């Protein structure tokens, strides 16, 4: 340990985890490239990298938790973690803003333009008679995608009622149960903390199952796939990346539940819990945007 005494900012001695993380990312992405290009060894590289990364996350976080429990972090270190998490979530906000921005752009500029409206397009220039609508009932030229791609028109659009509505209720409730857990933490009531976290994990998992059911239904019965032109593309990109974040959030919540059961958190030392809670609320807010702009409008 390089700094002595609790008043000093803790600077860890060398750590093997960063370079393990960098090499894991490299192998994972290398494997992914080979896999999408139909080279089999890529699949194995991805599997190995997945285990590699799981080991990495466990190891790195174990180190951090040990340092925390042995009291090496002072208030300033805690603040660094909080600010780091804040800026990380900011970058995530911009990542999702990208896809929302694309959705607005395509709906308000590209599609009217293809349909013959707008400044330069006084009629259909590329595809005569193409009428635009949203959700898309027609595709400009289903057989003429780049590189021989073909598109299929979905039989129906994803409605806002039914499963998506249930999922909205589930995610909003999970935000409430997480806050209930937080209240428990503040009162140093560990039982309330654990119960709140378990409920949140269950709700998060339910959301993911329902989302899976919805995808299955869309693929099998509605012909709504990644190939369904721009409607399918934006639908799966936005909901898919959101679902990925819910999955990560749920895994983090499970880890927090384990730590809460071991009584790691006190009313004034619980950055990990709060960081995960911020992340979960962020994922929650993104869903509200999705529900309004992808499912409803």
């Amino acid at each position, binding site marked *: 340990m390089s700094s002595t005494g609790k008043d000093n900012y803790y600077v860890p001695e060398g750590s093997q985890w960063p370079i393990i993380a960098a090499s894991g990312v490299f192998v994972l992405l290398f494997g*992914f*490239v080979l896999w999408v290009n139909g080279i089999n060894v890529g699949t194995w590289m991805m599997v190995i990298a997945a285990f590699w990364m799981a080991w990495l996350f466990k190891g790195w976080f174990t180190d951090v938790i040990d340092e925390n429990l042995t009291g090496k972090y002072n208030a300033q270190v805690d603040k660094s973690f909080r600010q780091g998490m804040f800026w990380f979530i900011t970058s995530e906000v911009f990542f999702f803003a990208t896809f929302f921005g694309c959705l607005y752009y395509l709906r308000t500029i590209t599609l009217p333009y293809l349909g013959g409206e707008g400044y330069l397009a006084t009629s259909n220039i590329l595809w005569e008679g193409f009428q635009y609508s949203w959700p898309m009932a027609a595709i400009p030229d289903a*057989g003429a995608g780049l590189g021989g791609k073909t598109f299929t028109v979905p039989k129906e659009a994803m409605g806002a009622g039914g499963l998506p509505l249930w999922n909205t209720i589930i995610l909003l409730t999970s935000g409430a149960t997480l806050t209930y857990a937080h209240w428990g933490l503040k009162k140093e009531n560990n039982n309330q903390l654990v119960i709140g976290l378990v409920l949140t994990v269950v709700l998060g998992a339910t959301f993911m199952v329902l989302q899976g059911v919805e995808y299955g239904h869309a693929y099998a019965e509605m012909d709504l796939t*990644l190939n369904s032109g721009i409607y399918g593309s934006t639908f799966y990109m936005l909901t898919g990346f959101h679902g990925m974040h819910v999955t990560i959030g749920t895994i983090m919540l499970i880890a927090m539940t384990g730590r809460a059961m071991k009584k790691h958190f006190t009313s004034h030392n619980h950055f990990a819990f709060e960081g995960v809670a911020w992340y979960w609320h962020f994922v929650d807010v993104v869903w509200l945007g999705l529900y309004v702009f992808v499912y409803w409008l």
Partner: protein
Amino acid sequence: MSTEVAHDDHHHGPPKGIGRWLFSTNHKDIGTMYLIFALVMLFLGGASAMMLRAELLYPGVQILDPDLYNNLLTNHALIMVFGMVMPAAAGMANWMIPLMIGAPDMALPRLNNLSFWLLPFAGTMLIISMIAPYIFGDTPVNTGWTLYPPLSVQAGIGMDFTIFTVHILGISSILASINIVTTIVNMRAPGMGYFNMPLFVWAWLLTGLLLIMVMPVLAGGVTMLLFDRHFGTAFFDAAGGGDPVLFQHLFWFFGHPEVYVLLLPSIGVLGLVVPTFSRKPLFAYKPLVYSMMLLTALGMVVWAHHQYTVGMSEAVTTYFMIGTILISIPVGYMLFSFIFTMWRGSMTFETPMLFAVAIVLMFSFAGVTGVMLAVVPADLQYHDTYFVVAHFHYALIPGAVFGLYAGVFYWLPKWTGHMYDEKLGKIFFWWTTISFNLTFFPQHFSGLAGMPRRIVDYSAIFMEFNFISSISAFAFGASHLLFLYIIIKTIKGGEKAGDMPWDGAQIGTPGLEWTVSSPPPFHTFEQPPAVIKQS
């Protein structure tokens, strides 16, 4: 303002062996690794530029196959932007920011190491993207660094590697920026207010914020590219209801702020070098900071001036034109701030100062051609000609690269404990400056005469200009061998440097870097120093 600093350093040295570098959590070691990586990439990117200029020496296709030419063009840009300028600036941030603000290290030291070690892996993947197409019999990545569809959707396996290179570089930049911003906000020594920070720290605070906001957009854009290539989506394909222009918006939403990401750290270096060698406080420090903020904000909302010719409505192009021209206000403010700092100062012209003066002059050229290019009807004529190539090389080489050279010469004594060879430094300055100008100034003329960029061949009427450009480019490239020699010579020995090697460095808003020895001990400021202000 004068600062009084009390600190107590424990003198234990670095760990032994390769582990010191692989597992490092020390901001100075990680800064050194960043700088060495940038230097290697400078030569790699430079070598590709030399090959391009060798091909352009005469009209006709002599050495490079057209696809390979476009591949080298793509890699030259990616390597120089992501592999050279950004890591060099990040290396300086790593080295200097904790020293300047009196922090024991970066706020998140392990994350810092991850940000660095992602870079060599990204560099490896970029090289694989060059080689893979030959193994698989595909066309090389020939899109230019902008990766525009539809060409990038149709390209071979190399493009997938390029996409993931961009992803790894993006992760690295975002993590580094999170770390730098957190360090500046949370780790300042007691008494070091925001407006006591050296300008370099301010510049990096804004750069970090920009990267946190725009890097994810590029990541999103290339992810959509990947999905269009392999998973049947139609984001950039009009036949499926998508739009190739959408990618241009995403790319330039990142790409234009990226210009300021490259520029601001160098402006920060100027903010230290100019007062030091003029022996006067920085003129109008606070308004200069505000103008950098304005630049950052305006830089986020003017991206589409790169796409005037794609058929946007008149209202949209007019907005982007006005926004772009407005940027000349904060940039002009900065340049005048530096000029007024020099005004009636006791100036001496050591190598960093020579670079600083050259930047003020030559970056103004880029500013002037920038205003020309911002005007829509004029740009319709200049678009995609060598005029644009000349413009952005004037913006990026004096604006970013010369600023980094000034920083290297300014801080080499602090980093190594030795003074560099002033005579060789001055030779390097004149050699690069003259050869740079002879390389890129003629391109203004060939561009105005209509020579298109990104094409392996050109009409024989442009021959003289290209011949001058190529010969000077070889001289410009060769000058960097001298740069390398000066650096190695300084590391190996030379006149001992004091704690404050520049006598003007304490003027204005100095950081705490001058209160530690040269080179600094392995750990500095383990106990926070107290900065006592006397205003």
